[in-house]
């Protein structure tokens, strides 16, 4: 009779929205009709000429794409190994890659006739990117943000309010991104008829992980053309930081079939994995279900979600996109982690060597260069996805200074 269970399992595997065993739709029934609607609308418009043109113009003229691929000569010299390129997503309007996705989703929300936009935010980058497009397209906007994150990222709270969004403080649970996501989902359940939920990462129920990845893959598509133009070949390594994992999926995805390109995702190990205060889901988690999909998850013996920790609010999430779990399980992408201190060191180094202040999130990817770049020869190429800029972290400078003392 075990065979029967396996057969039924296979039926599940055939459902759309699975990356091998990861993904799916684990949500209250109330949301199933809107997920079906979103999937149908997305599948229709993703190949629609006019829609694609509209999105392309917005990405170009409103956000400033393509973002450059910059040869970081000074940083390369410093490490004395491989040639290091930075994919400059920090140059986007609103300062990070997040706007690639919010522009795409708001156009879909308009197609679905939704009047109201909600979103969760951790560092506030996705909240700002959502409030920005809601202002541009004149839709009501409410952003859920953990009370602790509101303190850590006060600048972004002011920005969202300036843009006309209502920022709702979340005091439940750990008061961070995980709880902001719970509240956004509850809001969506209550207001499902007129509201679209712009999820900010490659997480959540199907079709979000696929859709957000597709809106972010422009990073990798551009990068491929740019590196071929500059170097006449593909890079040897691509590095990206991973919280939920949208900037990483965006740059990795177009290279998945290029087997010669090694890809490394860098998670946040906070105060160290052994300390228990970290956000290294793929390195230290187990398979579970959170926020609508099955993926790796930080959880205790009883299946309770363990609060994540990182100096960077944008990586402070106990889950990870299901496609990353898949890429890990098939050994296509390697996942490592960087501590707060390692990230802060890389943050400082890039600022000093290249005059570019990176986001603390992106600094986790940069920090891996110290391990990798010196091992490689001068004719090898590394691309780092510089997913966002560090302005938002400046008001954290005191904390960063304190951390620095220990570097």
């Amino acid at each position, binding site marked *: *009779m075990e065979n*029967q*269970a396996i057969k*039924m*399992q296979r*039926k*599940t595997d055939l*459902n759309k929205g699975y990356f091998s065993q990861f993904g*799916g*739709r*684990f*949500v*209250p*029934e*109330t949301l*199933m*009709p*809107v997920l079906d609607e979103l999937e149908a609308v997305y599948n229709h418009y993703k190949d629609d000429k006019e829609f694609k043109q509209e999105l392309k113009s917005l990405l170009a003229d409103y956000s400033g794409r393509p973002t450059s691929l910059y040869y970081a000569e000074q940083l390369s010299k410093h490490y004395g190994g491989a040639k290091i390129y930075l994919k400059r997503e920090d140059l986007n309007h609103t300062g990070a890659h997040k706007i690639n996705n919010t522009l795409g989703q708001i156009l879909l929300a308009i197609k679905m006739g939704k009047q109201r936009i909600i979103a969760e935010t951790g560092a506030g980058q996705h909240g700002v990117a959502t409030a920005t497009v809601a202002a541009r397209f004149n839709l009501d906007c409410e952003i859920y943000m953990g009370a602790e994150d509101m303190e850590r990222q006060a600048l972004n709270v002011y920005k969202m309010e300036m843009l006309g969004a209502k920022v709702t403080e979340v005091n*439940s*649970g750990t008061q961070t991104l*995980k*709880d902001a996501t*719970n509240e956004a*989902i*509850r809001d969506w*359940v*209550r*207001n*499902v*008829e007129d509201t679209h939920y712009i999820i900010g990462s490659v997480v959540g129920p199907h079709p979000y992980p696929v859709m957000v990845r597709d809106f972010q893959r422009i990073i990798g598509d551009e990068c491929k053309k740019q590196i071929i133009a500059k170097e006449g070949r593909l890079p040897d390594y691509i590095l990206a930081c991973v919280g939920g994992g949208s900037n990483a999926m965006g740059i990795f995805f177009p290279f998945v079939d290029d087997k010669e390109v090694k890809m490394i995702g860098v998670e946040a190990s906070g105060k160290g994995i052994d300390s228990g205060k970290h956000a290294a889901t793929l390195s230290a988690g*187990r*398979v*579970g*279900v*959170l*926020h*609508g999909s*099955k993926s790796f*998850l930080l*959880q205790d*013996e*009883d*299946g*309770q*979600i363990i609060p994540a920790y990182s100096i960077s609010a944008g990586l402070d999430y106990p889950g990870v996109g299901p496609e990353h779990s898949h890429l890990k399980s098939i050994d296509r992408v390697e996942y490592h982690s960087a501590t707060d201190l390692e990230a802060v060191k890389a943050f400082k180094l890039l600022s000093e060597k290249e005059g570019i202040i990176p986001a603390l999130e992106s600094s986790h990817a940069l920090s891996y260069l110290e391990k990798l770049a010196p091992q490689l020869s001068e004719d090898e190429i590394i691309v780092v996805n510089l997913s966002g800029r560090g302005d938002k972290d400046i008001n954290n400078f005191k904390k960063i200074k304190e951390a620095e003392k220990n570097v």
Partner: protein
Amino acid sequence: MSKIAAQFKDKKALITYISGGDPSLEMTEKLIYRLQEEGVDIIEIGIPFSDPLADGPVIQEASQRALKNGCTLKKLIEMLTDIKDKVKVPIVLMGYYNSVLNYGEKEFVEAIKKAGVSGVIIPDLPVDEKADLAYYLKEAALDQILLVTPNTSDERLKEISNSSSGFLYCVALLGTTGDARGPYPQLESYLKRVRKTAGDIPLGLGFGIDGPEKVKKFIDYPDGVIIGSALIKAITAGETETEKLENAGEFVRNIKKVLANYK
């Protein structure tokens, strides 16, 4: 007919929800006896979870109290196993899928069967994803109660009601548990539509049904009502254990009074 479905025979059933381990498993045990004495037809017991995204503030807080005091799914099942001979009323476990997945689906079903549990409700496990758990539950002759909502299409309604056993949980509004706005403005046409598609399976109405007034107003349409947040509020308002138990008893008696007038 399952033990759960039988509770709807010739009457409007009262189904009450309490959070397991809130604030302690000893209290949950006492509440089960009390609710049973007062004539509740089915008792739902919540598995505490850190991220209950279908629940409103009352059940979120109850869940947090339980976790803070060390309640786990394992301990909850052990308690139910210990008291199974004293419990005649059907027990339904309601919880989130991660708790079950983490326990092991097969192991979970075996353990709750031994504990005398009659069925489960997993609000974040829609019909599309229920395959493995459904298989083990069916093997163990336990009910899996599925949920429908006012925006569920006829096509899905059919699939869900065919797959649900014990009863069909009709969510009273587009919202989370304990939502004071409920029920849905077009409740009558919604439940008539469900009845037409679902066939003979009993219909339980829950989410935002907070007391005798709402029960009276809407009891014509379903076969039973499910009350959680409002009962927990009443229990929590009691300062001593005796007061809490008495509040639960009084709450149930007031609802039963209304239900006694209907068949």
